């Protein structure tokens, strides 16, 4: 059955949820977390980050818990945590399927 629109998390969205699963954070902390976690592979742009935060707040994946001057801090909700876990399981399944396909081909070198 095809997924509904918000269930299709992009890679950046996935890492934003990952950041909030670790701890409540503000925007700049999320950007730094993602850069560190991916070794600089993903440098999330400020506009991209704010679009994602707005979308997640609308979908009730995160909720604002504190406003201090120009800093807003968010924490993940149960719905957000569930969406993250579902995505992790989906990605795990993708990797398993890829491993099985490689085994059938006899091409196991890439999995060493």
């Amino acid at each position, binding site marked *: 059955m095809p997924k509904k629109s918000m269930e299709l998390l*992009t*890679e*950046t*969205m996935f890492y934003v949820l990952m950041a909030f699963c670790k701890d409540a954070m503000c*925007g*700049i902390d999320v*950007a730094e977390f993602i850069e560190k976690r991916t070794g600089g592979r*993903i*440098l*999330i*742009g*400020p*506009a*991209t*980050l*704010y*679009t*994602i*935060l*707005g*979308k997640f*707040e*609308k979908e009730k994946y995160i909720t*604002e818990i504190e406003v201090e001057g*120009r*800093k*807003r801090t968010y924490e993940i909700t149960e719905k957000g945590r569930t969406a993250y876990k579902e995505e992790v399981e989906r990605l795990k399944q993708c990797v398993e399927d890829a491993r099985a396909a490689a085994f059938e081909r006899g091409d196991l070198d890439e999995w060493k």
Partner: protein
Amino acid sequence: MQELQHLKGVTWMSGNNGEKKTYYRLVPCPSYDVEGIESWLEDMAEEGLFLTSDGFFFGFGFFHKGEPKKVKYRLQAKSSHGSFVSDGYEPLKEEMELSRELGWEFVVSHGEFFIYRSIEENVRELNSEPEVQAITLKEVKKRQLSSITTCLIWFILYPLVKKNGAFFVPMLYMKTWFYFFTAGLAFWFVFGSVWKFVYYTKLYKKLKRGEQLNREKNWKRKAWLQPAKTILLIVLCCAWGGIVLANIHRTVLFEDEIPLENYFGNPPFATMADIAPGSSYELRDMGYCNTVVEWSDVLAPVNYIWEEIAEVWISEDRSVYGLWDINYHELRWPWMAKLVAKDYMRMDKERDFEIIGELDLGIEYAMAYIDDIHMEKVVLVHGNKVLSGTFHEYAGEQENYFTLEEWAQMMADSIK
């Protein structure tokens, strides 16, 4: 509006008083052409021209001159997600702060977008993921659709609904050429809105596919077109506004109305003086009416509005006193006459409107009805002539001297 932060690393050129001089450049791309505007601004920076916080005005961009530099410009769609609702003039303070920390400076608001720039060569992209950028563009699309609907309602539907769907009579009263001039401007705005929506949709689909925008778009190819359109639109709108003001001025001063006592023309229809030829006739000064307006139009060479309050002595002891009101047109083609007649009935179709019926007056078409202010009215058509007329007798306690059929017959005989 936020003061523009000093662009780091740029040597500014100042005027004699030490202040930065402002340079004006015609914008070569429409405001919705994200790729074109970004490319153009970057090319301007390489010539030493940097967009100021005054942004744009009437098709001109405002720039300060400095040492040429490679600068990245990006347009970010205004969005309203969750608690992120900006006032439309600038982004939220937190977003600007984060952008600044990551190397991007907010410059100015422009239409549906905020313009950012960065002088850092290796700065991370403002939008690092096209699919996410598509989310904000989707909102812009929705707003544009709403704008199209508003344009359609106010420029097309409302004028028609206000006149109960009448088209030809308002056109003749406004003068056909001005009617089409106004309609042309209205369609320009509606079409422009639709075109913008189509452009945003193309851009949205591109971003949804994961494609980055083209930051090296050749804006020079049609650089003359947008300024030409802008200048033409300004000229046309000023001309339209000038004509409207002149017409209002003439209407307020009643310049088009000629008092009947000063009118010596020969109208091609019956007037109250024709009720009883040779009888004593006197205009009654009520402080209004007793005027004629006469004009020519490309679709109707002869047009009259005749409003007369007079008293005619039929006999020594009987006079007829009342309002004789005629709207008369000679159309260029007979087929238009019936359409104009139907328009008059449409315009009178408010509450209490009531059809009396067709009259047999020896002309092509004669319809009588009670209009929205309870007056008996007739609409007559013969060849290319149309007459919409009413005679309201102030008979007091006496019965009206003329019946509807009798005064309608007088009007009909005059246009045969």
